[in-house]
């Protein structure tokens, strides 16, 4: 049986681990370690390998949910992770110094994967920092020639993460119909 996966990426603290937990059927396998570098300013522990969750589908199929480590020094893993992926969920933390730079970095890093699949962007922490607005994200994306879904997301909310992944699926196939 084929192995399918959805990749969750984004900078440190954007909520990748939490988002995977929100929709995974099994408690996600976390590979967090105490933060010892610049990351410790944002959170006490961070993902150093990858997070893994799973969604069990009707008929026995599984969708594997992989979260990339946020730190750029682990980017060598990203190509391996995306192999066989059906799409990318990019989470951005709106409280970071330059979320647009983060967005451009990850869109560029995964550009080939996105070109072959699709991306959906979730902006977290908008309740803490409402700027930049979702409209401003779209304006930035327009300069890159992209029109992906961009939603405000609370990674702890199943519904937010669910809708984000649903938008990814509809981006891949607008004719898609649930049963």
């Amino acid at each position, binding site marked *: 049986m084929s192995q399918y996966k959805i990749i969750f990426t984004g900078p440190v603290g954007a909520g990748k681990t939490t988002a995977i937990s929100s929709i995974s059927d099994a408690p996600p396998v976390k590979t967090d370690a105490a933060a010892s570098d610049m990351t410790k300013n944002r959170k006490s522990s961070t993902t150093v390998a990858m997070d893994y969750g799973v969604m069990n589908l009707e008929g026995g199929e599984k969708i594997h949910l992989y979260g990339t480590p946020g730190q750029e020094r682990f980017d060598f893993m990203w190509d391996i992770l995306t192999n066989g992926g059906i799409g990318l969920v990019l989470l951005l933390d709106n409280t970071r110094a330059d979320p647009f730079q983060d967005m451009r970095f990850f869109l560029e890093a995964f550009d080939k994967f996105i070109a072959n699949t699709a991306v959906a962007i979730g902006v977290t922490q908008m309740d803490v920092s409402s700027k930049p607005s979702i409209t401003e994200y779209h304006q930035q994306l327009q300069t890159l020639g992209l*029109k992906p*879904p961009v939603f405000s997301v609370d990674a702890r909310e199943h*519904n937010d993460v669910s809708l984000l992944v649903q938008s990814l699926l509809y981006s891949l196939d607008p*004719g898609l119909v649930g*049963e």
Partner: protein
Amino acid sequence: MKKQGPVSIKVALYGMDPRSHKTMELYLKGPCRGIAEVVPEEDAEIDIIDADFATAGEILETRRQQTPERPILLLSLEFLKIENTYFVQKPVKAEQLTTVLSKIVSSKKPKQLIEPEQPVTTLGESPAAIQDAIPQENTDTANPLPKATKSRKTFANNEGGYTAFLGTLSDIDFSDPEQLRRASFDAKSHLLGYVLSAFKVACRQGKAQQLNSIWKPILIFPDTRQIWLDADDKQLRVFAGIEQNHTFAGKISLLPVDAAISKIGLAADKFQDIDVFIWKLTIWTSKGRFPASINLQQSVYLKHWPNFTRLLLTPDAMRIAALLLKDPRTPLQLANLLNIKPQYVFAFISACNSLDILGQCQRSADFMVVPEVPKPSKKQNLFSKILNKLRGD
């Protein structure tokens, strides 16, 4: 090992379109752990009615006449208190639904889950009629509604799961000018038009405004992109749908106010994001009709995705958005390609139009070529399973 009991309760579903019907069927099997199974109406022990459906009132009366002994469970976004019925508020939670179904089975004859304080309600045809018949003072006691700023949580949470405000139009013959006229609405004849106009003035002047009418004042704060209105969604929904006459227009006024002073003493939970407010106000004004300013013969395009996690989801909204972002299309092409009711497309394009994220193609080049129909993905079956999983959880 998931089954809770040896025998499933046999239920029949009413007032649900095929998708909602299937979703509920899967929900009973999955998250509700098979407590009930959907059967034909003649075999059912309990009738479950979506009370937000346009003809829910008629359905309820019919079920009462045809099977007077059979318990009836109503599902609704709004708190309902109708004699000799059971009630579960939407979005339905598995635990809540399971509990109520178990209670119904354990009682020998229909008994009210909520004791009525009012005489028996006679239902009209529309969900609004159902809700208008219900006392609202204590609606938050049994099932507290979230704050207005979290209004999305009071609605169905998945794309495709909400039909409460649509379906008032019967099938439209688009070649009949009279039917076409009735399928459109003019925002200027509704509260919506005044709100949109007031918001533009507020933004242009960079100053808070108070919109006065025969109804409650609406305060608009362009700096924080918020509005303040001392009314709940039910009241707003009713007022949104009323076509305004000259008396209303005569009472309208717009006054600049000092934002800092105006905010003092205002209830914090009455502030709403302006986009969220305009979106739902438009949908409740549209009621499945299209804006008169949109020419149905011309293609429309979407500038970008709406922020769906914070907006009232209309049926098939995500599918419409995804398709429109691929290519501009006429509203009727969208309905045909997606095989959905035109009303769903109309509600969606109305809301996008109000938020100014929808445009109408004007260039002749846009009408030269009919956009290709997107090919279904080879993984469509897999994607459908993921979709069902996400919606079912």
